[in-house]
């Protein structure tokens, strides 16, 4: 669709004008860490950053949400309040691509109403990655620092304080004012150069061995999973992980994130657990991402953001583990 060239202040002014009608979520510092979180002004928003701790799935599929209230005499469903629309600012291509993966599941055979409603009422403004992190490996999974899949508007730098806006959807169109100039060839090539530089910076590649599927029963998994402490960091910070639990807190039924690494995930009420051992849990996570999701939905459920490696308490490296399998 449309492409625009905007100065930084023009872009800021444009976004500022949206605060009135939209809830703006953007990368912002809190206690020395960067999070996607609701911001009150553009001053809070960080422009140069690699992946924040959390990712944008939180705003569609939150860590915990009340589904409904169930009592003897009534059932009251809770739907998210989407009256005020939301804009997610400066999402990175890996996170937005992950949303497309989640869509296949949550807006599939059974439509998840709250996810769908949030999806429909959220506009995503993406920001290209100029300096990807050491642990990024998006390219090998079909993404890239300048990829735009899943965005409504993408922003790529041209040069200092000048940006190329790519308006990709109608939702994107709704929030970007007619302004600025059309990109010129030179500007496009400047962006292209930045893109190439960024892509070159990504050295890590995931390389699924051809006999990956056959490796399922290999003792390899027992070895590589030894260090795992079965916490939920990799799954909770992963933009593509989506397992959840449904529990009751008082009369409220709540859906909350769950992780396949936890001891309770597959344990039945009477105590049996078909995936009790650590290596089985770990193997499940890897195969679910790299094998089953692909078989069921045609795509690998990993976008190469590198969060799982960065935040892993024992620094297990998914790239190394998959590549060496």
């Amino acid at each position, binding site marked *: 669709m449309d492409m625009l060239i905007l100065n930084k202040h023009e872009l800021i002014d444009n976004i500022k004008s949206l605060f009135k009608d939209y809830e703006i979520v953007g990368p912002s510092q809190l206690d020395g860490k960067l999070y996607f979180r609701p911001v009150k002004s553009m001053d809070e928003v960080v422009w140069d950053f690699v992946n924040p701790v959390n990712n944008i799935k939180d705003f569609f599929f939150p860590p915990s949400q009340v589904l409904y209230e169930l009592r003897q005499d009534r059932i009251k469903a809770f739907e998210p309040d989407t009256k005020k629309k939301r804009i997610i600012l400066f999402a990175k291509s890996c996170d937005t691509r992950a949303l497309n993966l989640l869509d296949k599941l949550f807006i599939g055979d059974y439509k998840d109403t709250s996810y769908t409603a949030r999806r429909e009422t959220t506009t995503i403004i993406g920001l290209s990655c100029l300096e990807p992190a050491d642990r990024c490996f998006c390219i090998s999974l079909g993404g890239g620092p300048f990829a735009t899949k899943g965005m409504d508007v993408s922003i790529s730098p041209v040069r200092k304080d000048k940006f190329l806006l790519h308006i990709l959807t109608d939702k994107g169109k709704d929030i970007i004012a007619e302004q600025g100039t059309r990109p010129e060839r030179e500007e496009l090539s400047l962006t292209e150069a930045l893109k190439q530089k960024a892509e070159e910076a990504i050295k890590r590649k995931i390389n699924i061995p051809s006999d990956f599927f056959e490796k399922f029963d290999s003792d390899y998994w027992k070895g590589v999973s030894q260090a795992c402490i079965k916490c939920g960091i990799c799954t909770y910070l992963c933009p593509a992980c989506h397992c959840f639990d449904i529990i009751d*807190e*008082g*009369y*409220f039924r709540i859906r909350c994130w769950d992780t396949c690494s936890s001891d309770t995930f597959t344990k039945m009420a009477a105590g049996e657990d078909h995936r009790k051992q650590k290596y089985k849990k770990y193997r499940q996570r890897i195969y679910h991402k790299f094998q089953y999701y692909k078989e069921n939905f045609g795509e690998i459920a990993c976008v190469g953001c590198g969060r799982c490696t960065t935040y892993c308490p024992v620094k297990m490296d998914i790239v190394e583990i998959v590549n060496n399998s």
Partner: protein
Amino acid sequence: MSRSHFDSGEKVKKKLKIIGFLCNWCSYAGADLAGTSRLQYPADIRIIRVPCSGRMNPLLVLKCLQEGADGVLVSGCHPGDCHYQEGNYYVRRRMLILKNLLEYFGIDKRRFHMSWVSASEGAKWADVVKKVVEDVRDACEEEVKTAG
């Protein structure tokens, strides 16, 4: 149960619900004696009988607060009087830690109390209840105030 109950009620209720865990041998008997002596005290307390104050796991206190109790009181025999030799000595240590933790996380310490009431201290029991109710009420009011 309200999900925010642990953070105190939205408004201060006229009547509080304070759960008292009383050991069977001293405090429960002391509370009975307050009754036999017709000593009057506020009706905000609900007593749960336990064999020994040493039965009290801090988790029970926390669970109680989480579920919505405005305050919790644990009462046992005076040190040395424990029917089960030493249960109250252990619970004293456990509850000290709990009390410190609650306070450290910003929970008003007046919501949780512990007392020693013997079987002959009917009057003390009445006084303890009065104090606890007053404290819990103050704590509730203060929290509502600071919450805006």
